Structure formats: C-alpha cells, structure tokens
C-alpha cells in the first residue's frame, strides 16, 4: 500500500459550539489534525469532551462554526445540506452504538437501504447487499428483522450497511458500547479486518481501552481540546 501516507482527512482550526437559548456552549476548540488513508484511529476522552461532536462534523452530519474539513479532495464545510447528504451517501459509512437499523426492514433490506440512493439496478443492489452480509458472516440471517437478532448480530448488519456503498471513510461512535465482551471482541475483530485486509479508513470513538487497543493510532480529546500529537498506539 504505497499511498498509505496520503492524507484522506485534513482538519484545520475547527471550532464548534452549541446554542442553548441565549447560552453558548463551546464544545470544540481549534482542532487541527490529519488522518492518512487506511488509518484506524480511535478517538478517546471523557464523557462530554466532544468526541461525538467531532465525529459528526467530519462525517458531515453537523456544521462547524469555523475551520475547514477536507475529506478526499473536497472541503465539506462549504457544502449545502443537500450537497452534504449526497456526499455522505457516497463517502461515509456509519456505525452507531445502538446499531440503528430500521426496525421494519429485514437484515438484507437494511443493508440495501443506502444503495437506493445510487444508480445500481435492483439486481445489483441485492448482490452487493448479500456480499456485504456474507462479509460479516450473516448471510443466513438475511431475512430476519432486527428484533430477531442479538445485539452483536445487529451491529454486524450495521457494519454491512456501512460498507456496502464502499465509502471513503467509516465512522463508528462507540460501536461496542452496548455489547457484551464476546460480541464486542467480534465486532472489533471485524473492524480490524476491514482496516487491514480491505484498507478501509476507520475513525472510531470509544470509551473502552480494549477497543482502543485495536486501533493503530489514538487521539485524546479533553474538554474540547486535542491533547496529544500523533501518538502511535503502544501496541
């Protein structure tokens, strides 16, 4: 992987605050850092330090007050809502703590969902979704509804949904936060494989040191500040 050193994400002087009525709550201060292509980054920090906020900004589901976020060749801070939606559909895969599958859709339909925003044919959508489910080892659960699956299985479906569009980056907010240890290990192993075998760039927010160990690089956020510079994961 020769181009591994190429930056896939460049964040420059990012500020973000929330408004609660007349009260302004600053959350992120002057965040600047890069993520190289093929990275597996874990973002850690105490509760309320702004991890989710930062992840949301670089995944294009929230707007920064100041600063720029470059993903690939595009500065997404200049995008309109519609452009952002289109960009997310093509470039970002999402994994959440609570899986967030659509309850009325079967596993395979959940995985297919993002493909409905592409120009793929019905047949191609089905093929892609089946392949993604096979990659997470759930092809035999294709026709199950989310409530018929365990937490770990639901999270695997969510991973399949996140990778089915072959996005530029994968973002995961506490992907193991709601899982027991065994399932958590499974999910982490799977993400590790996505990173090492398929070269997916992953940005993962976590509380769990065991989860952080799987990442190649660690970042710490404290009260809205990045507190370290490119510290390599001791592992």
């Amino acid at each position, binding site marked *: 992987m020769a181009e591994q050193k190429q930056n896939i994400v460049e964040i420059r002087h990012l500020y973000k605050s929330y408004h609660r009525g007349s009260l302004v709550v600053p959350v992120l201060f002057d965040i600047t850092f890069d993520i190289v292509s093929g990275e597996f980054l874990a973002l850690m920090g105490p509760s309320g330090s702004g991890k989710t*906020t930062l992840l*949301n900004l670089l995944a294009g*589901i*929230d707007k920064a007050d100041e600063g720029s976020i470059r993903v690939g060749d595009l500065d997404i801070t200049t995008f309109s809502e519609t452009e952002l939606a289109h960009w997310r559909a093509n470039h970002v895969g999402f994994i959440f703590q609570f899986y967030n599958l*659509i*309850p*009325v*859709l079967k596993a395979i339909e959940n995985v297919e969902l*993002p493909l409905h925003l592409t120009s793929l044919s019905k047949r191609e959508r089905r093929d892609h979704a089946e392949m993604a489910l096979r990659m997470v080892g759930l092809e035999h659960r294709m026709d199950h509804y989310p409530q018929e699956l365990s937490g770990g299985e639901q999270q695997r479906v969510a991973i399949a949904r996140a990778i089915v569009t072959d996005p530029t980056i994968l973002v995961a907010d506490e992907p193991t936060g709601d899982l027991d240890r065994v399932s958590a290990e499974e999910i982490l192993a799977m993400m590790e494989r996505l990173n090492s075998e398929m070269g997916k760039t992953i940005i993962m927010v976590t509380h769990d040191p065991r989860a952080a160990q799987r990442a190649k690089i660690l970042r710490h956020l404290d009260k809205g500040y990045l507190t370290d510079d490119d510290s390599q994961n001791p592992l």
Partner: protein
Amino acid sequence: MMILKILFRNAFHNKLRSGLTILGIAVAILAFGLLRTVISSWYAGVEAASTSRLVTRNAISIIFTLPLSYNEKIRQIEGVKMVSYGNWFGGVYIEEKNFFPNFCVEPRTYLEIYPEFVLSPAEKKAFLADRKGFVAGRKLAAKYGWKIGDPVTLKGTIYPGNWDFVLRGIYKGRDDTTDETQFYFHWDYLNETIKKVSPPRADQVGFYMIAVTRPDLSADVALAVDKTFKNSLAETLTETEKAFNQGFIAMSGAIVTAIQMVSFVVIIIIMAVVANTMAMTTRERIGDYAIMKTLGFGGRDITVLIFGESLVISLTGCLTGMILTFPAAAAFGQSLANFFPIFIVSRETLYLDILAAILIGCLAAIIPTRQAIRIGIADGLRRIG
C-alpha cells in the same frame, strides 16, 4: 420502492395502535356516511317531485282547506290537463310510533297524474270499485305484513274515530326515488262520513294536484289558478310540486343544518385523534428518520414516509367505514323506512368520505413532518438509546 415498503410496514408496525386508529376512522366515516345519507334522503322527496305537476293549497297555510267547488273551476283553466285532489288524513295505525304518510285522494285522477305508483290493472280495478279500499306502497305493506284483502283500521287524529279499510292494491315504485311507503284511500269515503258527523267540514279539500299539458306552461297555469281565486273566500297558492315539497322540507331545515354540522364535527374529532396518533408515532421514529437522513435520504423522502403512513391509515379506515356504510344504511333505512322512504348511500357521499379521509391523513401528517424535517441529524441521533 423502498420508501413505499417502509411506509406501509410502518403503518401496521404497531398493530394495536394502528388497529384502534383505523377502527376510529372507520366508525367516524360510517357515522359521517349515515348522517349524509339522512340529509340526502330528506331531500330525495324533492328530487322525485315533478315540475310538470302543480299543487294548489290555501294561501294562508297548508292547514286550511279549499272548497271542493274549485275543482271544476281549475279544470276550465287553459293548460290544465287533469285535476285531482286530496286531504291529509293523519291516521294512526295501532300506535303513534307507527308513522307513515296517509291521505285520501280522488282515486281515478290521482292514479293518472302519478304514473310512478305502479299498480296492476286488476288491483287498480279492485281499488276503484271499493269505496273502503286503499292502496299501500310495497315497503309499507311488507313492513306490516298486509296482504290483498286484509282489513286495516286507522285511528283518525284530524278526523276522529276508527276508520276501517280493506287493502285492494300494493303499488311498486317506477323509479328508485319513488316513495313506497304511502297509504291512500277514497276521498269520497272520508267526505261522506264527515258529512254525517260534522257537516261544516264536508266538501273541503286539502290540496289540488294539477297536471299541465306541457311542463313549460307550469308557471303560467300556476298564476292563472291563483288569479282565479283572488279575492275569494279562500285564496290559493299554487306552486310546482317540487317547490311545494321544498317548502315542506324547509320547515325542518334547522334539523338538517344540525345534522350537517354534526357530520362535520365527527370528522374534525377524528382528525384530532389521528393527528395525535401520528405525532406519537413520528416521535418514536425520530431516530429512524435521523438514520435515513444520515444515509443521505432527504426531506422529501421523510415527507413521503410520514404523509404516506398517515394516508395509508386514514384510507384503510375510510375503506372499512365505507364498506360498513352499506349494510348499516340498509338496516337503518329499513327501521326508519317511514321517515326516510328512500335511504340510499349516494355516490357523492362516498366521494365525500374519501375526501374527508385524505384531509384527515394530510392534516395529521403536517406537524409531525415539519418536526421530523426540522430536527438536525445530530440531535435526532442523540434521541436514540
């Protein structure tokens, strides 16, 4: 389309809630349909009335009579083809609650002027031959199980005493809108009896029915009739049968308005109920909508999802209600046949049902849709868990 699949499944995801909402809408649509049918059947008499027939009554009020001698004078007027006459009898069969219209007429002319009351030649002959004979509409005879030759006694209210009749004919309506609940008998029978017990009330007619030679002459003939009796002891008021019936119905206009209002109130209430259900449902799905937006679906998709779900529920309820309306109207019409001889669910009522359902579905979806679209993705996602 995936969106359609989701919205249909969403609509029936919470079975109890959707079921109850659909039931509520069905009952509301049923009530609405029945009330509308009550109103339209109220007016059906007017619709069935002919503009080529005139009715002449006392100018002061319908409760005053006219002398029998007017009959000859009216017949002389140009444009008049035939004249019949009758009196409202207002008799009661066994008990007060057995209400049906009953009156006496000059039978020969009456049957000619009203060809929509279809009587077999044999029955017609038997009726004309029997002074105490009467003719009943098919529905009326069926209701009381009367058969040809049966004796029937009415208790007089306007004309006291017990009046005995024999059923000589059962008429069928020529059209759907023909009233099949009437009871009519010989004017002579009434008049001769009155002559004996209360001579001053004899030879009095409640209303004249006039057939004109050409419908376009109606207005001229009406004027001519009223002019003939101007400044006489009993002045007349002549109008087309339609106008006459309308005047009759206008008396109960307030009731009709009340029913009309109730029918709309029912729709407004169910609108509030469905809006509440949709608000609850979408609040629960805020997370789902946030996910879909995260994946790149837009406000338009969310709008389709919520409006679609709301419309699926309201239209399912509407369809159920419409299907129930027919048997309910049949049962309703049967038990109230005497008040509403023509109780048929009209096509307009069904259109109104659908219109109401669409209105319910759309209005219920507006606020939840606005909320679901306005909320930022990040905020929506935070609501999960």
